[in-house]
Each structure stands twice: as structure tokens, then as C-alpha cells.
């Protein structure tokens, strides 16, 4: 098995009395796609927030390439190579498509105000390099971000393209680990398949991917491994087919659906 890139060790996060994530442990290996599944409210997004430093775990630890990242600031964790997308899009919608990707690179560029004032050669080189890289990243979505679109505000994009732009922005951080929160939510089947193919391409390009997903076709078609959660607890882990047929998982989905209709 490839090297372990991320280790979550008994991470727990409480909100008041609610254990949103409860004693959760799992490993991610370099170059695999892992899907995190579970009914609504089972703690998937909270897990992402723990990994990306938006929340600090109440107990337990999270290690990125062997080093603890629990308690680090989101920006520091980003710099260590973990980027994410959001379930509800959080693009900088008044900024242009290109600028959104450039913001993703922000931490990697060094130029300060003084550099900008005097347009030092260092700054100009850096600026040009970032723009070239940003255009490269946008070109990873063939046909979706033609040059003319680069200067348009992100808000003007179609919904599916905004989701793609979020992935592009996450890639701008040159991450080793990519966390995708429901990357195909709200897309039609054809678009979902396209994104699924893209996610597999990203894996083949060397990224490790952890994604939250509900779409069974995408889960089965893209993931190497699946982790299922319910009530903040990991209830199953393994190959996609095995997890999908796991009695505990079936029970979690059916049980919750029953409760939902009752309420």
C-alpha cells in the first residue's frame, strides 16, 4: 500500500451536547480517491472542517504526512497541501474567474505592497508566473473556461462552472490532498459524469482525494474506497460495493429516511 498521507486519530468534535464527530479514525493513502458518505447531519462536513482547521478537534489528532496539524490555522494547513471546496459554493463572486484562481495561489506568492508600488522585477516575474499557472489550471477543464471567460465575474458563470471553478481554485494551492464537499451536487447526470472523470484524472495526476458524495453512480464509479458515517461515528469502511451492501449502512440510510418522513 502507498504511503499514508493523512491520518485522523480518534477525532471528536462537540457542538454543545451534540457529538457531530465522535471518535473518528481513518487513513488516506497517497493517490487514492476516498468517498465519505452518510445521511445528512452525520458529520461529514464537520470532518472536513476539522481537517482544514476551521474547527479544532476537542480530542484526538490529525496528522498530515506524519505531522500533527490539529490546532493549526486554516491558512497554515492550506500551506501544508490540503485544499477544499465547499458544499455551498463560496467563490469570491464579485472577482473575476482568473482572480479567484489567483487568490488560491495567494499564500504561495511573496510580493508585498512595496514590491507592488515599485513594480520590482521579482514581483513582475512572480505575477506573470502566477497568471500563467492560473490559466494552466483553468485549462484543465477543457472548453469550460475559454480565455474570454477569465475576466468575467465568477457570479456570471453557470452553476456547474462555478463548481468547477471552486475545484480550480482549490488546485491553485498546489495541494497534495484535495477535499471535495459534494462536487456534483445540483449537476445533471452528464455533468456529473464529466466531473467524475475529471476527479479520476486528478488522481492519476498524483492528487489524493477525499470527497463527500451522495450520488451513487459517482461513488461507485470514482472511489477506490468508501467510508460511511452516521451520527458522527464511522460505521463502515472498505471497497465501494462492500460498503454499499453493508447492513449498518443500509440501516443508517433507511432508518434516517424513515425518521425524516415522520418529522
Amino acid at each position, binding site marked *: 500500500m502507498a504511503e499514508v498521507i493523512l491520518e485522523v486519530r480518534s477525532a471528536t468534535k462537540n457542538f454543545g451536547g451534540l457529538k457531530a464527530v465522535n471518535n473518528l479514525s481513518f487513513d488516506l493513502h497517497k493517490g487514492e480517491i476516498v468517498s465519505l458518505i452518510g445521511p445528512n447531519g452525520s458529520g461529514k462536513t464537520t470532518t472536513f472542517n476539522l481537517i*482544514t*482547521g*476551521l474547527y479544532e478537534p476537542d480530542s484526538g489528532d490529525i496528522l498530515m504526512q506524519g505531522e500533527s496539524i490539529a490546532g493549526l*490555522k*486554516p*491558512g497554515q494547513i*492550506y*500551506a501544508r497541501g490540503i485544499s*477544499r471546496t*465547499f*458544499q*455551498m459554493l*463560496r467563490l*469570491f*463572486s*464579485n*472577482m473575476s474567474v482568473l*482572480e479567484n484562481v*489567483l*487568490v*488560491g495561489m*495567494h*499564500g*504561495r*506568492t511573496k*510580493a*508585498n*505592497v512595496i514590491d*507592488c508600488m515599485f513594480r520590482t522585477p521579482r514581483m513582475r516575474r512572480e505575477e506573470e508566473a502566477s497568471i500563467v499557472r492560473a490559466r494552466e489550471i483553468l485549462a484543465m477543464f477543457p472548453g469550460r473556461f475559454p480565455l474570454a471567460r477569465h475576466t468575467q465575474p465568477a457570479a456570471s458563470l453557470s452553476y456547474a462552472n462555478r463548481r468547477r471553478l471552486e475545484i480550480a*481554485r482549490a488546485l491553485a*494551492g498546489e495541494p497534495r490532498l484535495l477535499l471535495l464537499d459534494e462536487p456534483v451536487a445540483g449537476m445533471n447526470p452528464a455533468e456529473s459524469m464529466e466531473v467524475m472523470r475529471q476527479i479520476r484524472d486528478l488522481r492519476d495526476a498524483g492528487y489524493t482525494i477525499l470527497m463527500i458524495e451522495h450520488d451513487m453512480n459517482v461513488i461507485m464509479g470514482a472511489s477506490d474506497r468508501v467510508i460511511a458515517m452516521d451520527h458522527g461515528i464511522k460505521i463502515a469502511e472498505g471497497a465501494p460495493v462492500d460498503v454499499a451492501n453493508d447492513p449498518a449502512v443500509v440501516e443508517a440510510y433507511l432508518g434516517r429516511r424513515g425518521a425524516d418522513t415522520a418529522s
Partner: protein
Amino acid sequence: MSPEHIFGLTVSGLTVGMIYALIALGYTMVYGVLQLINFAHGEVFTIGGYIAASTLIWIGVDATTPLAVKVLYFTVAVLVSLVLTATLGWLIERVAYRPLRGQTRIIALLSAIGTSIFLQNMIVIIFGPQPIIMPTAIVPTGFVEIFGARIRILQIVIIVVSLLLMGLLTWIVKGTRIGKAMRATSQDREAAEMMGIETNLTISFTFVMGSALAAIGGFLVAMYYGSLQFNTGFLYGLKAFTAAVLGGIGNIPGAVVGALILGLAENWGVGLSLGVLAWLLVAGLGLGLYFQLVRAPRQRISHIADEFRTPAYERQVRNVYRFAPVLAVRTLLSERTDALVHVSAQHALRLMVGNIIIFGLAIVFFASGDMQFASKWQHVISFVVLMAILMFRPSGILGENIQEKV
């Protein structure tokens, strides 16, 4: 009422408007990144002017100082004021706002008001309660004649300096790395933080820039009116804040637009007789009618989906605007209308009411054409303008900086 007089008032309006804009930018930028109204900003403005003026007093300028030396002193005063005031702005954020971040807004608001009072008292303690008088020797006193109106050179200086500063600010915000960080931070601080942007640094920078602009504003006001008082910043701050809200709080071009409108309205309002204002209203009515009869229907028609587009349908939409009162009311009352026509009818009625109000006001103004507002009315006018615009556009002329959060 001569054209020269109107031109003179316009220049005065632009001058005051530019100063409002310099202050309003600070309010709006801070609101952008923190969703906080920095009530201490008015005092930052006063202190900027005080520091510049007292630097000049301390150096000692008089009429015999040669021009080159005056320019040097002037530069020194500006620099000292910029550095100290920017530091003050930075300090305010660190001491009064940052420790309270994450608390409810009302707490930050209290802290802002407290800081404002504290700073006013500090001015009295340090500089004394009497107004500070700007050394007149440093102020450009000349006049030029433009279109027959006598314009103070200082007014031109104020307008040009402000324009340059706004250009610089636009470039910083649009074209530089820190500007990108500012825009990202003001749209979604958490997401910006997660992209590796140092939001605290960005917020500090925002305060520094806003305070620097206010400092220059303070200096310009001190030169324009010859003196400053410990509480000058209160009224200016309030006006600038009004301007920021008028243009759309959090929106940088909006602050400038709002400030200019306010400055012009105040000066036209008290300087012109009602008869002349009536002509302004007629111009406004022309614009309103153009909107109602041409722009709005054309825009609405362009929204019709292609599969529904028929000449008859287009005519129906256009007629709602043309014959607004009759047709629009009938459309709104009838049971079955399609959504687009219904929305158009509501819109048309609103435009119609606006135009009728303007028309009515114009008649009233024409009827009492010789009357003039006393200058005591200045502040009343600016708030009437504010209320009138916010009634039709609650989010300000150019719209608020809308926060999109999860």
C-alpha cells in the same frame, strides 16, 4: 441666478463632496472587511488635520518663508500626519475591535462609540478645547476665473488631490496583491483565510489606508475652512457615513458617488433659489420619463424568452410602461396576467409615482421661485436626499457589498 453662480456652487459642491469621499472610503472599506461601522473614523479625520496643522505651527511658517521652503514644510506636515494617523487607525483596530471579534455586533458598536468619545477627549486634553488655526501662510489663496466664476485655487487642489488619491486607491484595490486580499476578505473572510490569506494583516492594512485618506481629508478641511475643532469630525464623519450608505455601504465606488451627490445637493440646495432647483427637477423628470418610457421597457423586453417573443407580447409589455396608471392598475387588478407583465406593471407604477412626485415638486418650486433655503438647511437637505434615495433603493445607489456565507 447666473450660470456663473451655478458653476461656482457646483465646484464648491464637488470640493466638499471629495472631502466627504475621502472619509467615506474609510467607513466603507472597514465595513467591507469587518461589517463594522467604525464610528471613531470621524475622530481619526480630525486628528489627521490637527497633527498636520500643529506640525506647521510648530515649524513656524509665515508670509516671509520662501515658496520652496513652504512646499518642503507642507510635505513634512503631510507625511507626519499620514504616519501618525495611519498608526492611530492601526491601533484602534488592534485595541478596540480585534479583541472583540466574534462577539455580537452591538458590542463592537459600543466599542466604536466609546473609542470615538475617547479620541474626542484626547484631542481636548492634548491640543486644548479651543479650535486649532491653520497657519494661513501655507494655504494657497489665489483665485482663477473659470466660465466667469471665481474659483479658489485651493478648491482645484482639493479636487485634484482627491482624484489622484482615489485613482491610487482603485489601483491598490484592483491591481495589487494586497488589494486582491482585501476584496477576498470582504467577500468571505473565512474562505479567504482558508486560501492562505492573512486576513488579520489585510484588516490592519484596510484601517491604515482608510486612516491615511481621512488624515489627508482632515488636512484639506483645515486648509479650506482655516480651522478645526475637537468635534469637527463628528459632523463630517456623520456626513461621510451618510454618503457611504447612500452609495451602498461596503461598495468603494459607491462611497465616492454618494459623497459627490451629497456635496452637490448641499451646495445647490442652499445656494440656489427654488426657481433654479425647479429646473434641476425638470431635468430629473426628463431622465425619469426616459427611464419609464424607453430604458425600462427595452430592458424588460430583452428578458422575454425567445420562444414567447411575439410582437403582440412585446407591445403589451411596452404599453404597461407607456400608459402606466391605467393599464398597470388594470393589469394588477385582473386575475390572470403572466408574471412578466405583472412585474412590469408594478415597476411601471413605481417609476410613475416617482415621476409624479418630481413633477409636483417642480411645480411647487416654480410657484415659489424666489425663495431660498438658509444655510441652516444644509444638513436637513442632505438627510432628505438620503431618505429619498434609500426609499427607492434600500441598498444604496450602487448596491451593498453583499456577503455570501454558508
